[in-house]
């Protein structure tokens, strides 16, 4: 679950606008913290495994991106190593919307704690480990999280009314194949970029 369906309607109600803004920033801020921590950890693991990206490591990331792209395009089918659960909706009732938003952000920002759905995340995980720099891993996952958080911030400005906002997750899920293709394109790009880098390091 993301905040798109849970609090976007608040952003369309004039008197709830400040509450919505606080929730969104709590969500994005806490998610940025957890995503960065995960990235730092991945980079540190890579550092322990052996610093510096070699040709073979880059070939591995390239091949992984290709496999994941093939999955997104429906050419092959395999399960991603993901935890098949959503974040906890009940937190909103237990802690209130503001604290729950921060908790949702932190939980989803961890990446591995909820559904991943699309394979791009695992290319980033592999790259963070292969590069072996905690700083780079942190920055990489932080930027990934910005991509996840920005739509939540923009959503109320793109929908016409609170009722349309409430239907947003269902509306988007009907176009899930589009996001699968976008991920597929970006994975093919990742395959090419790492292949190019591998050839240059030979």
């Amino acid at each position, binding site marked *: *679950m*993301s905040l*798109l*369906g849970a609090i976007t309607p608040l952003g369309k109600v004039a008197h709830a606008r400040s509450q919505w803004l606080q929730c969104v920033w709590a969500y994005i801020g806490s998610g940025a913290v957890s995503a960065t921590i995960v990235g730092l950890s991945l980079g540190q693991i890579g550092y322990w495994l052996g610093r510096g*990206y070699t040709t073979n490591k*880059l070939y591995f990331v390239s091949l992984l991106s290709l496999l994941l792209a093939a999955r997104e395009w429906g050419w092959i089918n395999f399960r991603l190593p993901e935890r098949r659960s959503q974040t906890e909706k009940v937190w909103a009732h237990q802690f209130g919307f503001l604290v729950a938003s921060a908790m949702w952000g932190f939980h989803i920002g961890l990446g591995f704690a909820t*559904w*991943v*759905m*699309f394979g*791009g*995340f695992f*290319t*980033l995980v592999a*790259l963070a480990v292969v*590069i072996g*720099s905690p700083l*780079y891993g942190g*920055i*990489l*996952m932080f*930027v*990934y*999280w*910005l*991509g*996840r*958080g*920005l*739509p939540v911030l*923009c*959503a109320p400005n*793109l*929908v016409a009314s609170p009722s*349309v906002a409430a239907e*947003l*997750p269902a*509306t*988007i*899920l*009907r*176009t*899930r194949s*589009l*996001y*699968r293709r*976008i*991920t597929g*394109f*970006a994975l093919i*790009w*990742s395959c090419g*970029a*790492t292949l*190019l*880098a591998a050839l240059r390091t030979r």
Partner: protein
Amino acid sequence: MEMCDPNPFSTYNHRVLLVCLATGTLAAFFDLRVAFLPAAFVFGWSQIGGA
């Protein structure tokens, strides 16, 4: 009758993809690490579809 796409992000999806990957491609000629930052943004953005 013309149907309107109800997904409010539909205007931006392809722009995000094209701008980020174009930026990443330029950066890839200099530094792979920098090149992957726009791609990471795309991967995050596309998670809208897993909402």
